[in-house]
């Protein structure tokens, strides 16, 4: 095999990461039965195609549009459009927008608003003020990078330390205006959470039709069980309720509010299942992280009885010296992909001979890995998304994902060189890296566990 051949094959393979889905085929009405010529492989002229089929296609589109409109109006008592999200990402393969708060978590001087920013440039595109008297405290996004749910609470202001206050819920959507994108806000019919309820996690389904909320009631001992509720975004109705085990100390799913309500402990697998991960200690004292899947069709009630373990993750490798790659022991560092086939893990450790290639390196002397993908079916590592050659940064490299695409081939995350107190934030895919502006203001390389995740929604 020649060098040119190897390089060509690798470059062509890299295209795969850029094109991961195609628009569905929309066929016009059947062709007339009698055609004069046999199939010869000619592509019909687009002008003729549209010229002859424009009328029936237009009619069909009109019928479909009316049907959709009827469904929309029926589903939402107020007559407002139901949230419908497209799962098609821009050609860049990463979301175009993200949502964050308009002030650092510790700022309690004014109500917290929401900011829409461009992922590639970090430019602020729109600022949405909270409803009068309220302050935003949590955000979660659908799959289309322009549909979000945010929750808000009453004074005192500030995102941090907002646990226990009553929450009201809002649908936030990106709309186009003549001067660029804007945000609109619609109050949802989801009941406000009672005072004293701490939000452990929020997750909007990919199609924005359902909102999963994990919460616990803050009481004195003994602490109460956590509740996982799934709400209809359109009607506010509670569709499902599960409870954490009575003998486990909360939080069973997710954590407490640290710089915003947590939004990464739950992941939707398509629109019919939820995945969550748990950290436990084995008898030997070794930390173990387990991924569980909860299908919405399973009975309400005990969450463990309705869930199944889909993966037990390898523990993170030791830092500072060669060790097998493993995932960090924290709920936000493992992200199950939307297609339900794999998870991407932020962790650390060195690679081994079983890893065939690390694209970002010029020489095959690499061995420090930050992001890796694992199959949920086999538990084996299937992808390396980032890494560094020994000597570039020592062995102490950590990866923190904040967004992963549906197949696990692209991750937005933060790779930190622990020994240097510096890092790289951006898009990691097949070993290549594209830097992005750090998504929130403040000290970009002082990552506090979970705090960045809670402050951004892609």
């Amino acid at each position: 095999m020649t060098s040119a051949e190897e390089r060509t094959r690798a470059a062509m393979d890299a295209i795969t990461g850029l094109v991961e889905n195609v628009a569905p085929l929309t066929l016009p009405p059947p062709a007339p039965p009698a055609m004069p010529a046999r199939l010869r492989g000619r592509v019909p002229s687009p002008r003729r195609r549209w010229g002859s089929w424009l009328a029936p296609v237009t009619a069909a589109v009109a019928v479909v549009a009316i049907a959709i409109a009827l469904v929309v109006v029926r589903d939402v008592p107020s007559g407002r459009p139901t949230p419908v999200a497209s799962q098609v990402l821009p050609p860049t393969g990463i979301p175009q927008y993200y949502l964050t708060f308009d002030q650092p978590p510790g700022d309690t001087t004014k109500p917290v608003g929401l900011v829409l920013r461009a992922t590639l440039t970090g430019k602020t595109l729109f600022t949405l003020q909270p409803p009068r008297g309220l302050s935003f405290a949590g955000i979660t996004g659908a799959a289309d990078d322009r549909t979000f749910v945010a929750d808000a609470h009453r004074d005192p202001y500030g995102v941090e330390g907002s646990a226990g206050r009553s929450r009201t819920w809002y649908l936030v959507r990106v709309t186009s205006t003549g001067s660029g994108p804007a945000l609109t806000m619609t109050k949802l019919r989801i009941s406000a959470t009672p005072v004293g309820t701490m939000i452990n996690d929020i997750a909007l389904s990919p199609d924005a039709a359902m909102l999963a909320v994990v919460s616990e009631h803050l009481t004195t001992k003994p602490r109460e069980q956590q509740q996982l509720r799934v709400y209809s975004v359109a009607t506010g109705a509670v569709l499902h309720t599960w409870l954490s085990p009575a003998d486990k100390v909360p939080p069973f799913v997710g954590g407490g509010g640290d710089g915003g309500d947590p939004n990464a402990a739950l992941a939707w697998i398509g629109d019919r299942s939820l995945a969550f991960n748990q950290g436990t200690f084995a008898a030997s004292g070794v930390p173990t992280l387990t991924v569980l899947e909860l299908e919405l069709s399973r009975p309400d009630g005990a969450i463990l009885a309705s869930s199944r373990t889909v993966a037990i993750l390898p523990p993170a490798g030791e830092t500072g010296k060669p060790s097998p790659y493993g995932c960090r022991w924290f709920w936000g560092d493992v992200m199950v992909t939307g297609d339900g086939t794999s998870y991407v893990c932020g962790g650390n450790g060195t690679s081994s001979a079983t890893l065939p290639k690390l694209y970002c390196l010029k020489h095959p002397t690499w061995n420090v890995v930050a992001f890796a993908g694992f199959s949920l079916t086999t538990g084996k590592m299937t992808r390396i998304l980032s890494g560094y050659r020994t000597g570039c940064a020592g062995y102490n490299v950590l990866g923190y994902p904040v967004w992963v695409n549906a197949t696990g081939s692209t991750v937005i995350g933060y790779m930190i060189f622990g020994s240097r107190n510096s890092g790289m934030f951006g898009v990691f895919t097949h070993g290549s890296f594209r830097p992005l502006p750090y998504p929130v203001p403040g000290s970009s390389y002082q990552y506090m566990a979970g705090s960045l995740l809670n402050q951004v929604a892609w």
Partner: protein
Amino acid sequence: MDSVETQTPRPARPPAAVPAEAGVTALYEANALGLVRLAVIMLGDRQAAEDVVQDAFFGLYRNWSRLDDPGKALAYVRSSVLNGCRAAVRGQTRRDRRDRAAATDARSSIESAEALVLLSEEHREVLLAVRRLPERQREALVLRFYFGLSEEETARAMRISRGTVKSSLSRALAALGRMLTEES
């Protein structure tokens, strides 16, 4: 590597046994992603690539009832995609030029700044070099190396002889080797 799905296209079902819409849709779902990726490599433009592939499946749909050999359905679409890519590359019509310009304006081209940065510099250089190859060499290279077709299948898709496939491939690799050496 998740390109495997594109390298093992699902065999087409007999067209006569299924209605045109179901048959073409099934074939599209099984093969469109791989064909779009192929067209992206050929054209360097995501939007144009999707247009070419959609056009190819439209062509198959319109001619479904006269497809006498079910095994030809995928080969037909593949050839149509190649034809479409040739037409787009040559810019034969005003419409093609306008669409490409629009695609560039909309920053949907794979050559746009956002998309290119997702490829490493090494891969960008190689793909740009591939696109500078003569048409036949480029097609042979993509069909063999990316789509994983045999020489025989490549010959059928390109409607040339196996010998021509081999020589085109050999010349393509030699030219690529020269271009990449010069650039580095």
